[in-house]
């Protein structure tokens, strides 16, 4: 197995807040290869967005990496000086954010923003950069690229802005595109277009994608692999196929059941009682225990590690037992 392009080892991130030191990420490890399509799923407070920011060096001032290493092209980036680190990251990665309007400079024409990287980092001439920008605009499905080259971000709709953001991210020919909830703020029909674009880029150009979202259905449509995040750690890791059909962790199970299915209506939605834990306090035992239907006494004593189980990985003491969970499911039904 060749060296993964990006390798995250035991990453931990702390954030200083008014209410104390927040342990936003508590030991996350995973590898990303070019051509991978990984979905990181979690609810608010799970740490999914911070994970991306930590990898790309975009942490806010009050946050810092407290443990762990990040390797890019096999090199430990903490050992590099800022310039080399930036060069290494920008050569291999691109990122798009939730709010495209915030990611675009409102006073620079969009075409110029796309040609920035070719012109100033890759050293191409003005004409070459413009040509690259135009072809990128076509690549992301923007018709009429010549005339739209000179538009400003506010003159475009949300969906188009997000496409421009993707074009900018692609302008450095990255191998991996990091996406932080890029479609959450978009209408569902526009979201479908953007997802289709990302899928095409994957199949046609071999672009790797790391997609952070709270929407399981989107992960199902776009990604091959999934990481489920809860309270700053991965609690389940596996292929989308396996995880959606046979989730191994109770949280994943609950989340899949709680998400309403557009294809059928049920009498009552499955709920997860309680709230996510406050990560300014130390975590004792499994953080999901208070809300878990599969809880045993062991769960409050120590925190389970992410270990391989039945072709996936799960951080849970209580082994896969789909018959038990099917029984739980019909108990819920009887309560309706």
């Amino acid at each position, binding site marked *: 197995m060749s060296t993964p392009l990006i390798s995250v080892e035991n990453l931990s991130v702390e954030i200083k807040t008014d209410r104390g030191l927040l342990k936003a990420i508590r030991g996350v490890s995973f590898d990303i290869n070019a051509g991978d399509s990984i979905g990181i799923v979690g609810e608010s407070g799970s740490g999914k967005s911070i994970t991306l920011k930590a990898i790309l060096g975009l942490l806010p001032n009050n946050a810092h990496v407290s443990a762990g290493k990040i390797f890019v092209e096999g090199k430990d980036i903490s050992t590099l000086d800022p310039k080399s680190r930036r060069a290494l990251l920008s050569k291999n990665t691109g990122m798009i954010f939730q709010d495209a309007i915030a990611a675009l400079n409102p006073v620079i024409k969009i075409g110029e923003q796309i040609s920035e990287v070719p012109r100033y980092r890759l050293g191409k001439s003005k004409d070459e950069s413009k040509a690259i920008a135009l072809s990128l605009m076509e690549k992301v499905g923007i018709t009429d690229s010549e005339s739209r080259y000179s538009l400003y971000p506010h003159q475009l709709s949300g969906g188009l802005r997000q496409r421009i953001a993707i074009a900018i991210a692609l302008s450095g020919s990255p191998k991996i595109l990091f996406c932080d909830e890029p479609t959450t703020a978009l209408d*569902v029909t526009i979201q479908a277009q953007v997802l289709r674009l990302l899928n095409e880029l994957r199949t046609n150009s071999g672009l790797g994608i790391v997609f952070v979202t709270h929407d399981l259905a989107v992960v199902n449509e776009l990604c091959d692999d999934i990481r489920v995040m809860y309270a700053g750690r991965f609690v389940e890791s596996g292929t989308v196929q396996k995880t959606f059909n046979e989730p191994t962790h109770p949280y994943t199970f609950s989340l899949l059941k709680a998400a309403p299915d557009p294809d059928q209506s049920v009498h009552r939605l499955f709920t997860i009682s309680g709230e996510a834990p406050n990560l300014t306090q130390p975590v004792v035992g499994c953080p999901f225990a208070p809300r878990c239907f599969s809880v045993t006494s062991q769960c409050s004593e120590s925190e389970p590690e992410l270990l391989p189980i039945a072709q996936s990985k799960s951080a849970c003491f209580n082994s896969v037992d789909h018959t038990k969970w099917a029984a739980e499911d019909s108990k819920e039904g009887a309560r309706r």
Partner: protein
Amino acid sequence: MSQSVISAENVVKHFTKKQSIVDRLRKKEAFNVPAIDGVTIDLRAGETLGLVGESGCGKSTLGRTLVGLYKTTAGTIELNGKVVGEERTLEERRSVQMVFQDPFSSLNPRMTVGQVLREAINFHKLVPADKVEERCQELLSIVGLPKDSLNSFPRQFSGGQRQRIGIARALALEPKILIADEVVSALDVSVQASVVNLLMDLKRDLGLTMLFISHNIAVVRQVSDRIAVMYLGRIVEVGPTEQVFNNPSHPYTKLLLSSVPKMTSGSQISSAPSGELQSIKSAMVGCRFRGRCPVAIDACATLDPDLKLVEGTHQAACLLV
């Protein structure tokens, strides 16, 4: 056929862009944004009508116009068969209530839960003075909030709990109709489910009539008996939920339903035709959807279709129906 509790007949709501003095002196025509442009809809007693559509379709505006926050530019609204005037009576106001989207801005940060509830109850004298506290506790228990919530401020609650407070506030007025404007859109999935369940329980236990506005198709499907699809200020399809989902008849509804990402395995990112939501200005002649419609014919450029019968009570506004 059960009686219509609230209905809108050809309701139009324009927002007029403020004109500067110079424009007015030049007698320039005022720029109107027709947020809803001729909507006829009714809600029957005890039913939940789901209202879906994307940004700019006018669903929130319709909800707010029905509840009385906006005055209609044209058209009429009837409550229990009686036409509602420019200014609503206190009774009329009380009978239609709304729960809002944003758990943060929908509660007065400087009032406790108890103060909000008591104010509503006392103003309408819904309950004798010595029973007010009891009623407040009853409301708390109906929405599933802890007993000691009355003296707490909104900031001490989570997003899901705040939405419950908002529901309690609306229920305190004992309305006949509840309009839920994107009430779960700002909540996490696990919290969404419990609030949706609550609304379904209320519908069953209190016989509430509900208008459920949301852009989340999956949630709407769970909650609604009937569903109406809006596009650029018009209703393009309406009918019983299962019929509309199983047999979408308007091209926009088909587009919408096929764009929703699925939970079942197998990626099916649809062949969604390209095209952005048009600006309202440009879509004023003929069918509003024709710019994005995969099956548009020549007639669509000149004729603006009304709702036509598909089957039973299922209607769609398309020339090809």
